[in-house]
């Protein structure tokens, strides 16, 4: 836990232009604010969870960090070096490509169906590490073994592998170049619990071995709680709360986090009497009002001020931050 952080993200922003243009381009095209003013740091060996509803920008943020998308503003620094300025199209040729790798949600769809498991794992090694011949073969087999893939499965094509085996190929391919940062987008969401345990164990073991930092995107809060050291909660592109996983789950300070945590059902635990339920759906992410809290209208404790001013970010004890006019700090302070 010493030295400079591995990853420093500051004021990161991504806006997608939509609509407008066309023949009768009278008005400027709208902008979809997918990621807005996101800042955080990550140390080597740390696991950061990204949670929020679909459309909150967590996958866009993951892709910005994996440098598959170009940010509209802000900076991404890896070991102090600015990497946000390199165009995503040319990042593949950058020496930093081997340092940041991604595991995709859909193992089936993200592996080329015409590549064997061996080829899928060999490609990044050949391209990014320049390995060939016996050295390549050795590294592929070793990585596969590390990821629990027996050598006899390596000549198989994706359709000849089970869901869990495909997930392992996706992970082996990502960790083959020994990246410093691993971005995982819902790696276990398609798996049964019995297989999920094995994959989570594998990720933890790989991380202990390589010291890689992980960014773990998931909608399963029980899994995030299990795996992550810290958690970022996102709502409509903005980080509404950040903090150590256990504190954040036991004493959420943002009303949205509280609703999110309250909605999680726990096996074997009877239903709680008092539950917070969110009414309605998130508002549109297209050209949102800059002078309002984005959660206003859905927020159970929102007041007039929330519609007139963007919420300030409060720092709470224990390295927590919450962006709210009226944070639920009693619980948060008690936990800190």
């Amino acid at each position: 836990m010493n030295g400079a952080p591995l990853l420093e993200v500051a004021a990161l922003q991504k806006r997608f232009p939509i609509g407008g243009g066309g023949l009768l381009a009278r008005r400027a095209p709208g902008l979809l604010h997918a990621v807005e003013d996101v800042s955080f740091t990550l140390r080597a060996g740390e696991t950061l969870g990204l949670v929020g509803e679909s459309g909150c920008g967590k996958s866009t943020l993951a892709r910005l960090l994996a440098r598959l998308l170009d940010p509209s503003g802000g900076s991404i620094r890896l070991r102090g070096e600015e990497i946000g300025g390199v165009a995503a199209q040319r990042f593949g040729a950058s020496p930093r490509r081997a340092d940041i790798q991604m595991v995709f949600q859909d193992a089936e769809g993200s592996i080329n169906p015409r590549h064997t498991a061996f080829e899928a794992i060999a490609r990044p090694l050949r391209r990014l590490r320049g390995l060939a011949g016996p050295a390549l073969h050795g590294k592929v087999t070793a990585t596969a073994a590390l990821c629990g893939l027996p050598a006899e499965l390596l000549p198989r094509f994706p359709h000849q592998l089970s869901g869990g085996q495909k997930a392992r190929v996706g992970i082996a391919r990502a960790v083959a170049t020994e990246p410093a940062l691993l971005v995982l987008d819902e790696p276990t969401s398609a798996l049964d619990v019995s297989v999920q345990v094995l994959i989570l164990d594998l990720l933890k073991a790989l991380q202990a071995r390589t010291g890689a930092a992980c960014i773990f995107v998931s909608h399963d809060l029980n899994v995030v709680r299990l795996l992550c050291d810290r958690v970022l909660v996102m709502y409509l592109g903005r980080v509404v709360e950040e903090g150590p996983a256990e504190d954040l789950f036991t004493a959420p300070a943002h009303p949205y986090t509280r609703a999110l945590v309250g909605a999680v059902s726990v096996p074997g635990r009877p239903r709680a009497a008092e539950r917070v339920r969110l009414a309605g759906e998130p508002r549109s992410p297209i050209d949102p009002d800059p002078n309002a809290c984005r959660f206003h209208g859905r927020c159970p404790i929102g007041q007039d001020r929330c519609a007139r001013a963007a919420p300030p970010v409060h720092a709470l004890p224990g390295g927590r931050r919450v962006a709210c006019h009226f944070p639920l700090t009693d619980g948060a302070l008690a936990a800190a």
Partner: protein
Amino acid sequence: MNDVAAATLVQAAARAAPRVPVLEVADLSVEFRTRSGTVRALDGVSLQVHRGECLGVVGESGSGKSVTAYAVMRLLDPAARITGGRITFGGMDMLGAGDADLADLRGRELSMIFQNPRASLNPIRPVGTQIADVLLRHGGVTRAQAPARAAALLAEVGIPDPERRARAYPFELSGGMCQRVGIALALACRPALLIADEPTTGLDVTTQAVIMDLVLGLARARGMATVLITHDLGLATEYCDSIAVMHAGHVVETAPTAALFATPRHPYTARLIGATPRPGLALGDLASIAGSLPDLRREDLPACRFLDRCERARPDCAAAPLPRRTEAARMVACRYPL
């Protein structure tokens, strides 16, 4: 006075015939004939659901949860063959029923909510029209009344501005909204039994909670029987009165929800609970389940299909018949239960 007399009669009837299940599946077996052999997808499945109750059917993919649901709805693929057992719904023999009777029953007395809300709706018809279709077919509603009734149903499932949304096509609605439409469709004619097949998979946790509260709230208010098919033990805990655990086409255990988690008796139930993440547990506390589902095309399937994955297995576990011990409200299909 008449109302009081009627109420007394109903109570008397309820006392005279206690606990007649709305749905009773007894010893149901289903096979699929495929090019690579016969898949014995269900073997001796028995389930019961009573009025106002919610039964959870849980298990991993391939355990036969959805096949059971489709068998009850009599919507199985043509390659499927029901080789044994009975399905009784409201006293009626579902396996002997003709196509016309079934078409009359489905959507009126017996409804289903499907896993993928967007795919289960007709993409080229406005959602209000789709609900009106069901009302016209089953609900005794005139063509003039149908649009207003459809909008009222959309309002009942919490869709804001229902008159306008009734004219929307499924692609114009979010996943959560589409699932609300699916619920409105399923509940349009106040069915006696609702089968919900993974109704919230793919929805956000916040939306999931709201949708489940809605479905179960309406079900309890109307005294409907509900079967909730899910792979999510958390969801089953929160909403079901009792749970049936399936593995490889067998119901391995049935128990009231609290009892199942407090004292699981089948080794598979225990392993499934032990593999599920929950607060207060570290990753090291979770254990996987050894092996995988057996190939259901095998000729020599042992009587207990969990045999190869079970650490408590003994030589006589392979011998038929599979014991199904029943005591109080519980059933466990194991020779050496926990």
